[in-house]
């Protein structure tokens, strides 16, 4: 294990199952701030669409003001979103940070965690909006009141928030909080190859 990069990768892989286990068990606590961000955005921008937001473990239930259909006039439409789908970057970031073991490791963990929360909220909100504006039956989608351009924006926000951000944000956060570690990796290669 003379190669520092190989050692780093192996230690990261060793930490990953531990980080995933902690993340899964503590998800309702770890993701509580996401719930607060989502509540804030809903209150500010979508108060007319969502009556209440309920949390069941790591799942957020959006109880909407939309009616499921004419035949069930008394019902309300509820959309469930699994926050874990947008938060798998947290254990990845934790494993990378624990493997790097640079000075102020806990500070880096906290910064990365805080930096990732808004992007997890992005994914959750975009998932909800995609459900009511795009994949819902026309009768429901029409009640939501989004125009064609807004639906395009929601579709892009959902795709970007589900396919790119959950994976990229932890990597970017790790790179930005470990610049000294990266410089060290490069410097050690120069020394070892000279």
């Amino acid at each position, binding site marked *: 294990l003379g190669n520092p990069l190989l050692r780093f990768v192996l230690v990261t*892989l060793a930490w990953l199952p531990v980080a995933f286990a902690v993340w899964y068990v503590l998800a309702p606590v770890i993701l509580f701030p996401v719930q607060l961000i989502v509540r804030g955005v809903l209150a500010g921008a979508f108060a007319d669409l969502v009556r209440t937001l309920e949390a069941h473990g790591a799942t957020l239930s959006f109880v909407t003001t939309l009616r499921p259909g004419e035949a069930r006039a008394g019902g309300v439409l509820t959309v469930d979103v699994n926050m874990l789908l947008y938060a*798998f970057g947290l254990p990845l970031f934790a494993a*990378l940070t624990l493997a790097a073991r640079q000075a102020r490791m806990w500070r880096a963990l906290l910064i990365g965690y805080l930096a990732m929360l808004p992007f997890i909220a992005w994914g959750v909100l975009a998932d909800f909006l995609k459900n009511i504006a795009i994949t819902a039956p026309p009768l429901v989608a029409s009640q939501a009141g989004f125009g064609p351009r807004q639906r395009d924006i929601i579709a*892009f926000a959902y*795709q*970007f928030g589900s396919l*790119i951000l959950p994976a*990229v944000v932890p990597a970017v956060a790790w790179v930005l909080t470990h610049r000294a570690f990266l410089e060290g*990796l*490069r410097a050690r290669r120069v020394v070892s190859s000279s």
Partner: protein
Amino acid sequence: MVRFFVLFVTLLALLFALELTPWVQAYFVVPWTNALAAISTSIVTVFDANVIASGKVIRSVTNGFAVSIEAGCNGVEATIVLLAAIFAFPAPWRHKLIGIAIGIVAVQALNVVRVISLFYIGQWDHAVFEWAHQYVWQALIMLDVLIVWLIWVRRIPRADDLPPPAAPPELAAG
């Protein structure tokens, strides 16, 4: 670092938007996803002859279990992230092109492992399949992209690695 970060995010958004266009979907993403299913199936049939590919679907003819390779599992997004990271980082173009060529192979090779492993995990246990599919493999593929990028960054010659420029003739002569 700021220049790299801004360029990376810009390239990422542009490449992803390009990926979503109907033209790129029709002429690149769909054929690529079908090819990925065919490549994965051809590897699987070395030890399990009862597997067939149909478009982007891999199916077991023994028990009927099938997986469909959807967006996010075809490795296209991971490749886009790698392309943006390599293009955004300051390096000679020759190194960028070599990094992209080798990096794409490395990312797609692990993605084939992901597809094949999920195909068999799904036949074994649905709950484990969901976990592996939605969380674990997503993290591992991104880790793969990061490792490839780190290896590439380590191999870029630094300015102070280069030999000093030759002295001007008049000075060398003196």
